């Protein structure tokens, strides 16, 4: 058990409220949106820290601080790893297999989504040994189209929901958003947290909302929780948000929407990898990580994989536990892959536009 199990241990005597038993899915499945009653999180060693707003706050503020200079220096230092030849080939294929190929534009059409789906299944039409990507990521109204486009391939369909990207809608609307996406066949839901609630210190509200969304996902859809780290601004906040997400039952914690100025960075992703590592040590529960936005080159992607390898460890080197939220990254990976195979650079006309 790691650092955090100790925090939980030390913390336990402060929590006086009884541990609430998790509700069975049947209890809440039929309830109308927004009226699911008090949220009940998953059962694990730290369940009692979410017993009340003040308990949660004390727990989150009791997490070790993050020294920004040291964190960024560590991320930069891991960025100097030199990944060559066989290691590079492995990393490129792994990175391709981890992509959530994403289109999240007002201008998305069924045609665009179908093109994206085709590319997800066969990223490089000239080389069928190229792995397929992990998922396509679309808005909820495009889930059915995306599902059709990747049918039978094993590529998942992820849908952003909960009034993405701002998340400024009533809970009922957010949950309806989620349910629609799940009903349309989404395998994964990418929700945004209520940053307003987080920044005003209402951590339990953030937590409850994630629990409610998790419930709306049902048993089949995996939940990715987006923190919008660029808006949380400090590393201490990112660590706290990571723990709220994990405590609430997130399957993945995700940096960003890709819609703000600062998205995934090596430092914030490193921090979140430390969080999932520590959470597993404390609870036995493994949670995935998804950096999203701003990762455009193979070189960048490989740096993130090095972070995974040397922070969370190789248990996370699998697309079940690590994803890249990206769109243009795929073509750069494909060009690098062709370079490794042929010994020369091809160029943008030798990969497909989507």
């Amino acid at each position, binding site marked *: 058990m790691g650092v955090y199990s100790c925090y939980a241990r030390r913390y336990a005597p402060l929590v006086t409220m009884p541990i609430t038993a998790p509700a069975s899915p049947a209890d809440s499945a039929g309830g109308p949106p927004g009226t699911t009653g008090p949220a009940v999180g998953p059962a694990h060693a730290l369940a009692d820290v979410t017993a009340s707003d003040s308990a949660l706050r004390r727990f989150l503020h009791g997490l070790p601080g993050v020294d920004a200079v040291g964190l960024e220096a560590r991320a930069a230092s891991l960025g100097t790893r030199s990944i*060559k030849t066989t290691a590079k080939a492995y990393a490129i294929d792994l990175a391709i297999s981890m992509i959530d190929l994403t289109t999240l534009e007002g201008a998305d059409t069924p045609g665009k989504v179908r093109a994206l789906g085709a590319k997800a299944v066969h990223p490089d039409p000239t080389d069928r040994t190229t792995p397929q990507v992990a998922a396509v990521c679309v808005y909820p109204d495009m889930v059915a189209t995306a599902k059709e486009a990747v049918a039978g391939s094993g590529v998942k369909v992820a849908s952003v929901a909960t009034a993405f990207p701002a998340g400024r809608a009533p809970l009922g609307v957010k949950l309806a958003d989620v349910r629609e996406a799940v009903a349309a066949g989404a395998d994964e839901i990418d929700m945004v947290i209520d940053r307003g609630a987080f920044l005003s210190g209402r951590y339990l509200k953030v937590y409850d909302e994630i629990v409610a969304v998790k419930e709306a996902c049902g048993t089949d859809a995996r939940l990715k929780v987006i923190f919008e780290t660029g808006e949380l601004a400090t590393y201490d906040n990112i660590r706290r948000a990571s723990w709220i997400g994990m405590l609430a039952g997130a399957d993945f914690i995700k940096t960003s929407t890709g819609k703000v100025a600062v998205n995934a960075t090596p430092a914030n992703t490193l921090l979140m990898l430390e969080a999932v590592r520590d959470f597993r040590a404390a609870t036995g529960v493994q949670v995935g990580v998804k950096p999203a936005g701003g990762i455009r080159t193979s070189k960048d992607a490989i740096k993130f994989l090095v972070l995974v390898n040397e922070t969370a460890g190789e248990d996370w080197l699998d697309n079940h536990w690590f994803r890249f939220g990206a769109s243009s990254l795929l073509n750069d990976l494909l060009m690098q892959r062709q370079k490794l195979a042929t010994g020369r650079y091809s160029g943008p006309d030798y990969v497909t536009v989507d």
Partner: protein
Amino acid sequence: MTMDKQSSLFEYAPAPESRSVVDIAASYGLFIDGEFAEAADGKVFKTVSPSTEEVLSEVAQAGEADVDRAVKAARKAFEKWSALPGSERAKYLFRIARIIQERSRELAVLETLDNGKPIKETRDADLPLVAAHFFYYAGWADKLDYAGYGPNPRPLGVAGQVIPWNFPLLMLAWKIAPALATGNTVVLKPAETTPLSALFFADICRQAGLPKGVVNILPGYGDTGAALVAHPDVDKVAFTGSTAVGKEIARALAGTRKKLTLELGGKGANIVFDDAPIDQAVEGIVTGIFFNQGQVCCAGSRLLVQESIQEELLESLKRRLSTLRLGDPLDKNTDIGAINSAEQLARITALAEQGEAEGAERWSPACELPSSGYWFAPTLFTNVTQAHTIARDEIFGPVLSVLTFRTPEEAVAKANNTQYGLSAGIWTEKGSRILAVADRLRAGVVWANTFNKFDPTSPFGGYKESGFGREGGRHGLEAYLDV
């Protein structure tokens, strides 16, 4: 996923830096009065690569006659060099700094070959700091009037400088840059296991058109150094190395007019409080003791951890140590390189064995050592007390002694309970505690929430048996001025 899983999923392929960027000659002479020359008695010694024991080159070994010739050359050059306007001396130093930057890849590879430290460190730490040091003191050369030592402060004359093998080129820069900026001329003796980068620096002096005799380089062993510091026409002695040799030098210089600065050993305390940023503290502990295989005078070789978080911290630290990559120093992914010499390896080995014999608990991550060369696995000792030899003696290797404390009071007392006083580190998120503790630590450098960070603008030096005098910053000028 469609890929096959390998046993170790993400195995980094070898990524060696090319050796071809550096051309090491079969033999090198002494650098005296602007020319390379053989030793008067024709003596030579071999320098080997510590990671492979391969002989890199044969180097002339300076004797007393050579020392005398070099000091005379420096004395002769001093007259004109010290008379140059500071702005002119600055031009040479700026030129040297730029050439170092231009040749930094070559010098980094050379240093890694001769010293055994990873290319990651020579490339990202040593060489950038070397260039920065010359740039920094180049800037002072025409501003000495404003250094706080009165108008027109005068140089001392000929400086005899003896440097160690742990940062060969960086220690050269620490010695030569301030000496030249203030108008002194120098005779420098590099360590016998790492003479090559100093000889390449001699070539850089020629490339920069530095007047003859201003810089003289005399490779050799301890007797060469002893002859140099004892030479009657040397005005200033600067030494970095072991406390034992430092004491000898101080005795030799007692009663002479020579000005002396000593930068000696250390047993730095790295103090981790229970409110520390744990993940970054772990990084800092690693940097503190495993940077340059722990062969650092200011290494954080004593970890003082608050007892209440000892278990968790050690667990995190051990996990982190398991990710360190030990091996070929030229590989860009190597974190831990070779120990500099068989002699040093024997010393580290003996002290570690003594630690075990005295009852401390030894731990190393699973780590395969190369079959040739001088290697020592990163090592951690727990159950160490102030009474253990490994808590008191400088090991100068990748060996960390872990001690605990209960209160800030106790942390300060234990940190100061050493014959040394070179460095210390404080890890806490509480700013007021940093200030309060730093104030009471008897150490020349105190790092807060970081460790082993160097900058030419910052003075560096010791308390107690770690030496006296400061190098770096404005304070570093004083050692070379008649003030």
